[in-house]
């Protein structure tokens, strides 16, 4: 696993974690939330808002082609804060209308967005560029990296002034008492208790390499979960833990990061990765970015991370504070308490709901339009059945992030369009398969009765076969819709909005309230959709198919 992948996954768990949560919630109970439906169905307001959000989504899509500046960021707080700093800096120049595409899936997705021009720049780390994007095993210089980036129309530059890499940390007071400043100093204290994260212990360039490089006199210590390692260190059960050098906890628990005097850890200096035409296209903005060079020290970055992670401030607010000079290194973050209900009913609730519904139902409509004919074709033509069914089955096995990363360069944009395509593809299987099964399950006697009447093929399909298969087809559509509600939460990874935004942000910032404020509405929506389809079943399935047999 690449270091930066791990860094991100450690902070947000895994993208599948959020989906799993929704599935788990969805499975519980069958309360159809009638009150919520009442709100949803609330007269013309629903339609008005929906059409507004349709418009909004279309605008968002087309906006990526307009001559503005689009800043990207990955889905963890540090990247989002830096993205906000860049966006606000650009907007202050008056030269451009900058917008921020935040929470983009992973390195692969944000890099694809940059290459396709969906974004103009984003904050990245030297180690990630060399190892992950350029697949360079060594530690190339910035010039060398730029030589390799140039053919892609990209460039890297403007180091911001901090390194977010691996490090070992101790409690400040303990380190002072023992006089430990560097990693080399550790060798003189073989009695220290180590509590390292599992990942750090497993990596070849983690603990074992570090131990050999500095000749450290420790056995292999117990592995902890990252969060638990911090708590153990803070509580005094252990003396040394591995950290990322800009973790908010460093400040929160008053820790000292030991100096890597032997230059063992690779550099993860933060800098800008941008499209090469940017300095020429927006010279004033570029000059303003240049002025950020070296302005963000590690303690400043730690303070800003703490503002988001611990005080639950928004990234735009923290970025504004920084640009106004209101962030100071070492400032104490205080956990803010807001009630869950105010988080749930935050102003982004309805926009997120409409975005979610839009993604689910537009993709579902497309799958119905394509899936039913495909199912009919598979049922009618024996040679077509195998390839059609196995193809839609195969699509289902592609991991969602992989599919998105694949679709972005294909459609040359991020956001709504690739998300809808992905959801469309995932919805196909239940619809195609149920249409196929519904049609092929019709008894030969009925099929022949229709034939013997002298009805042409089209009329047989319309008057006999589709009505007989209606229940199976509708069940397939229902399955697709419910799964879509869950899968649509991935949309947030590529900037298409929906409830996934809250789940993402909640995971990123360790904010359970925010996570649940996204997951619970998504689960409720899934139940609601299921319930709506059960009602629809009564309207669509012919009464005769539900009629009780005599006796």
């Amino acid at each position: 696993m690449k270091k930066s992948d791990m860094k991100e996954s450690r902070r947000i768990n895994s993208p599948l974690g959020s989906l799993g949560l929704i599935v788990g919630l969805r499975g519980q109970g069958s309360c159809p939330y009638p009150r919520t439906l009442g709100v949803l169905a609330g007269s013309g307001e629903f339609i008005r808002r929906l059409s507004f959000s349709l418009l909004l989504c279309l605008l968002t899509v087309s906006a990526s082609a307009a001559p503005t500046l689009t800043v990207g960021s990955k889905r963890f707080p540090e990247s989002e804060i830096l993205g906000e700093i860049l966006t606000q800096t650009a907007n202050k120049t008056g030269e451009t209308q900058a917008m921020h595409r935040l929470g983009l899936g992973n390195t692969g997705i944000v890099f694809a967005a940059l290459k396709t021009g969906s974004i103009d720049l984003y904050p990245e780390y030297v180690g990630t560029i060399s190892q992950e994007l350029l697949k360079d095993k060594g530690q190339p210089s910035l010039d060398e990296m730029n030589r390799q980036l140039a053919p892609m129309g990209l460039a890297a530059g403007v180091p911001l002034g901090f390194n977010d890499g691996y490090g070992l940390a101790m409690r400040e007071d303990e380190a002072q008492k023992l006089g430990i400043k560097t990693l080399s100093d550790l060798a003189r204290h073989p009695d220290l208790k180590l509590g390292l994260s599992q990942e750090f212990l497993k990596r070849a360039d983690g603990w074992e390499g570090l131990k050999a490089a500095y000749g450290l006199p420790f056995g292999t210590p117990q592995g902890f979960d990252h969060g638990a390692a911090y708590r153990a260190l803070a509580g005094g059960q252990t003396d040394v833990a591995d950290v990322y050098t800009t973790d908010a906890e460093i400040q929160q628990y008053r820790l000292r990061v030991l100096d890597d005097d032997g230059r063992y850890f690779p550099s993860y200096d933060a800098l800008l990765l941008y499209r090469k035409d940017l300095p020429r296209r927006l010279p004033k903005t570029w000059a303003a970015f240049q002025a950020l060079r070296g302005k963000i020290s590690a303690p400043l970055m730690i303070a800003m991370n703490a503002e988001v992670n611990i005080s639950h401030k928004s990234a735009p607010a923290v970025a504004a504070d920084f640009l106004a000079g209101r962030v100071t290194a070492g400032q104490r973050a205080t956990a803010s308490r807001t009630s869950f209900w105010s988080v749930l009913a935050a102003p982004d609730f309805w926009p997120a709901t409409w975005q979610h519904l839009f993604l689910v139902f537009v993709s579902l409509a497309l799958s119905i339009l394509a899936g039913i004919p495909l199912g009919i074709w598979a049922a009618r033509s024996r040679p077509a059945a195998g390839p059609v069914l196995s193809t839609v089955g195969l699509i289902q096995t592609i991991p969602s992030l992989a599919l998105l990363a694949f679709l972005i360069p294909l459609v040359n944009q991020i956001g709504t369009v690739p998300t809808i395509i992905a959801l469309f593809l995932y919805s196909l299987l239940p619809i195609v398969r149920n249409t196929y099964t519904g049609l092929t399950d019709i008894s030969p006697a009925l099929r022949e009765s229709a034939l013997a009447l002298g009805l042409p093929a089209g009329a047989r399909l319309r008057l006999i076969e589709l009505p007989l298969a209606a229940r199976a087809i509708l069940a397939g559509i229902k399955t697709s819709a419910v799964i879509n509600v869950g899968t649509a939460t991935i949309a947030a990874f590529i900037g298409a909005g929906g409830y996934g935004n809250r789940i993402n942000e909640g995971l990123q910032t360790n904010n359970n309230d925010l996570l649940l404020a996204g997951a619970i509405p998504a689960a409720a929506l899934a139940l609601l959709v299921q319930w709506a389809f059960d009602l629809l079943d009564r309207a669509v399935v012919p009464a005769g198919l539900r009629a009780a047999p005599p006796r």
Partner: protein
Amino acid sequence: MIAVENVSKTYGGQTALAATSLDFAEGKTTVLIGPSGCGKSTLLRIIVGLITPDAGRVALDGQEMTPASAERLRHGIGYVIQDGGLFPHLTAERNVTLLARFLGRPNGEMEGRVKELADLVQLPRESLARFPANLSGGQRQRVGLMRALMLDPKLLLLDEPLGALDPITRYELQTQLKEIFERLGKTVILVTHDMGEAAYFATGEIVLMQSGKIVQRGSLDDLLERPAQPYVSQFIRAQRSPLADVPEVPSA
């Protein structure tokens, strides 16, 4: 009017029907009889065009049954299968009028015809609004017959129409069907494996089949008195009811 000339059908080397030629007396009821798998249903389904024969031809009023002509020719054929073959999502009435509606027949004409047919097959009017699942087996068969007769076809094909009914309903329906056939004067081809039923219905020939071939065709007397092969007598004996000697109770 119906000519079957040298039609044959094999499935994967297995002969379902050897080359067979047959004609049917107009206005009479011809019965195809034989054990399971003898080819009688295959022959009937070839006539209505559900099975395309490997060789030979079927012509109705001089028009050959081909995939292209099948739809039109079927409008002149009524076809009834075991248990009626009704579409479960349509009411009895909709089942009966399905094709007429598709062909755009006027509503008034259809309504009149449905009433006429309901009276003919003695189906209570209120049953017309029911779905097949809510009808008894006998009623389903009556509705199936109404559907077959809706466009007043010249030819009526019945494939074991009474096979799924209990003995009493079956007995009752046999009586009514025979009356209907006599009253309508249509050309009827009925497939059964029951010799008693065959003897009861046949006003034309009884055609006894075995292993895809016609063994003998003729009147009941011909089959009883002048069997073409020992198999004919064997088949008739095997069909005899153990209660054959019980005197029939005179019906009211």
